[in-house]
């Protein structure tokens, strides 16, 4: 990896990706400069960053080497998993927090470079991928003053419009718009839906699933074909433990890969290998403004896990990475890759790379059943579900869900269950129907093969 430090003797900075839009790096802090032995681990020239509260390995790099290291991890993730192709139209999910702020900055950096290459090339053969930004307005779910939200949206507008061209469209999407646009009571329904969940952890997780629905809707309505999330290593590490604690061991490996194409619009996680400490530091160094109008500390089980991971990090700063490494050894699903494309606009190299990563055709994708709430793949249909196919709609819905959602999200008694189902967005209901159809097919297949066995 090259070093883009101005003081770096390797002279390689020209070849590296400069983020044209980022402000000039701040001068090295004086405190560090006092000690001449205390130099950046990598370039051995500049003073390392000495941030007030951070003391991990990242603080032993100089700002430039640190920046290029993080960007390098991002770029490696993007290229090695074919996350973005020239013909793509990419939507960056932007919450205003440090992770998605960096994701936006880096995607912008990639696009900027592609744009420069495009302008420099003679034949203009390589298209420049498009970038849009989505902000989900969750006022309906949080007790936040509308002033605060309006202010945040204004700030976000200026962040997005201040990025160098090509222009990036910002989509501000109220989360209640997951309901059909013709229904005016979306906010009301959403509140009632969330109120119907008794478990604090379940409520939080349901909102997370609804946020994904919203992002998918923005992406599909506006012609995007990739959704970039800022999920970082620290966040994924927490998810690994949370999913384990919630009994979602089977579906876990679907959630933690670089690519997740079980959604209509494939989701990619280019910051998969960056820790939140690194991303926070980068925002701090580069003066990237962060704001999170809907930031609330995780509660319930999620809160317990996040404080547990914090304690672990104190004891051993690489613990998050170890957790990630363990989870990385779990077998991913077929949909954890970018679907193959026959688009001839896509350069051959990329198509070849896809061939290498794509092992099998889509057949096995369709065999998977998904929980309509969390969209987690389900482990084998069981006989319980089989019998439920002939029962009423709400109990059919219940049976289509994973055991974790059944426990922490769905109401226990049948009458509340009916009410709950009536409050769900159409996409969720459709997912359940699709699941039931697939289940019926599978059962029929099973019955067929059973009778064959008998013969």
């Amino acid at each position: 990896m090259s070093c883009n430090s101005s003081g770096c003797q390797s002279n390689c900075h020209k070849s590296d990706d400069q983020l044209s839009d980022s402000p000039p790096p701040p001068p090295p802090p004086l405190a560090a400069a006092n000690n001449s032995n205390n130099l950046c681990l990598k370039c051995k020239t500049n003073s390392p960053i000495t941030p007030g509260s951070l003391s991990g390995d990242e603080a032993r790099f100089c700002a430039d080497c640190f920046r290029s290291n993080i960007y390098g991890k991002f770029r490696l993730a993007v290229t090695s998993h074919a996350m973005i192709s020239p013909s793509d139209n990419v939507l960056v999910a932007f919450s205003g927090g440090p992770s998605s702020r960096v994701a936006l900055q880096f995607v912008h950096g990639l696009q900027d470079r592609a744009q420069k290459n495009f302008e420099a090339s003679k034949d203009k053969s390589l298209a420049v991928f498009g970038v849009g930004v989505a902000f989900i307005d969750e006022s309906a779910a949080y007790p936040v003053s509308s002033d605060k939200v309006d202010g945040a949206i204004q700030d976000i507008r200026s962040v997005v419009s201040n990025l160098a061209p090509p222009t990036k469209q910002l989509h501000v999407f109220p989360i209640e718009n997951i309901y059909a646009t013709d229904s005016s009571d979306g906010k009301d329904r959403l509140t009632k839906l969330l109120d119907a969940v008794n478990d604090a952890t379940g409520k939080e997780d349901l909102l997370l699933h609804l946020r994904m629905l919203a992002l998918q809707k923005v992406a599909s309505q506006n012609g995007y074909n990739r959704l970039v999330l800022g999920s970082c290593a620290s966040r994924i590490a927490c998810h690994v433990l949370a999913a384990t604690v919630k009994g979602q061991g089977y579906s876990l490996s679907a959630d933690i890969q670089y690519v997740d194409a079980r959604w209509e619009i494939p989701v990619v996680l280019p910051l998969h290998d960056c820790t939140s400490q690194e991303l926070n530091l980068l925002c701090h160094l580069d003066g990237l403004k962060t704001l999170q109008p809907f930031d609330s500390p995780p509660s319930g089980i999620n809160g317990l896990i996040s404080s547990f991971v914090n304690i672990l990090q104190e004891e051993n700063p690489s613990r998050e990475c170890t957790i990630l490494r363990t989870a990385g050894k779990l077998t991913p699903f077929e949909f954890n890759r970018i679907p193959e494309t026959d688009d001839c606009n896509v350069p051959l190299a990329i198509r070849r790379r896809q061939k290498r990563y794509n092992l099998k055709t889509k057949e096995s994708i369709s065999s998977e059943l998904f929980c309509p709430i969390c969209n987690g793949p389900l482990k084998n249909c069981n006989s319980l579900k089989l019998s439920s196919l002939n029962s009423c709609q709400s109990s059919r819905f219940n049976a289509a869900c994973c055991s974790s959602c059944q426990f922490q999200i769905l109401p226990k008694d049948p009458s509340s269950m009916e009410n709950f189902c009536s409050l769900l967005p159409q996409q969720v209901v459709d997912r359940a129907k699709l699941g039931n159809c697939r289940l019926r097919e599978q059962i029929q297949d099973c019955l067929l093969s059973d009778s064959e066995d008998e013969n």
Partner: protein
Amino acid sequence: MEGNHEKARVRLCYLCNQRRAALKRPKTLEQICRECFYEVFEEEIHQVIVKNQLFKPGERIAIGASGGKDSTVLAYVLSELNRRHNYGLDLFLLSVDEGITGYRDDSLETVKRNELQYGLPLKIVSYKDLYGWTMDEIVKTIGLKNNCTFCGVFRRQALDRGAALLKVDKLVTGHNADDIAETVLLNILRGDIARLSRCTSITTGEDGPIPRCKPFKYTYEKEIVMYAYFKRLDYFSTECIYSPNAYRGFAREFIKDLERMRPRAILDIIKSGEDFRISTSTKMPEQGICERCGYISSQKWCKACVLLEGLNKGLPKLGIGRSRGLDNNHRKDVKQINGTKNIEGKQCGSLDF
């Protein structure tokens, strides 16, 4: 008085609806009386045994007995069930004497009482006899660092040797649901995918000299302790004097915090452990035989022999840490567990037993 009446009226057993409820089951959140508790507790273990075909009639079974709550309850319940359901098992108590004054000598007294109380023959194997060293002597030589590594390796082998002496077919241990959930977490935290894939199996070591199984795999620690308390079972509950921090493990504390917030989390963790998609092609170390003592080993010498060699040569660090033992094969699987780190949880006691 009125309040008391109110309480008594409300708290009737969920199952018999007659007697006063005595505890809330973490597994089901039902409030049940003592008598019904005994019944469901024992019946559930019986069902686990039957469903997983843990035993065959006529088998000789050793119960790893430390004198602690888990193995004491296991010994009691197993001998009950054996009688009640005619398993046709020959049960034995098998204890390891590590040679720790003021700890194991006391807990062995408990096991000796259990021998009489339950009428189960007891076999004690000692580190002194097997290895020539007591833990007291080992600690005198190496100090309090890494002593749990020695103890863990020696105990595992001692149990197998004891089981061989008793000519048993199987060894049962008192690992409970909390222990297994904790092990799942620890294996995630330390990146050990091989152990992660097998730590939730109810039976392990079927390729080894003596298979081990865990009839308490789905049994909550809370219920084991309640059972022991209500039945006034005689068990020993002092922490090993050489690992005073063992039970302070973050993971154990985390499990207990989780249980308080959501009791079913313990079973959910075990379910996750069973469901993880782990490809079975993960390389397992090749099993061979220790050239020195004949115990199963993936190396030229087994771990215990390597450690012993170090002790006897005055090089106690031999075999500790990431060393590769005495042979120069660069096999990756010989990574040692660092027993001194807090996060590795309780090396002593129930986990490695």
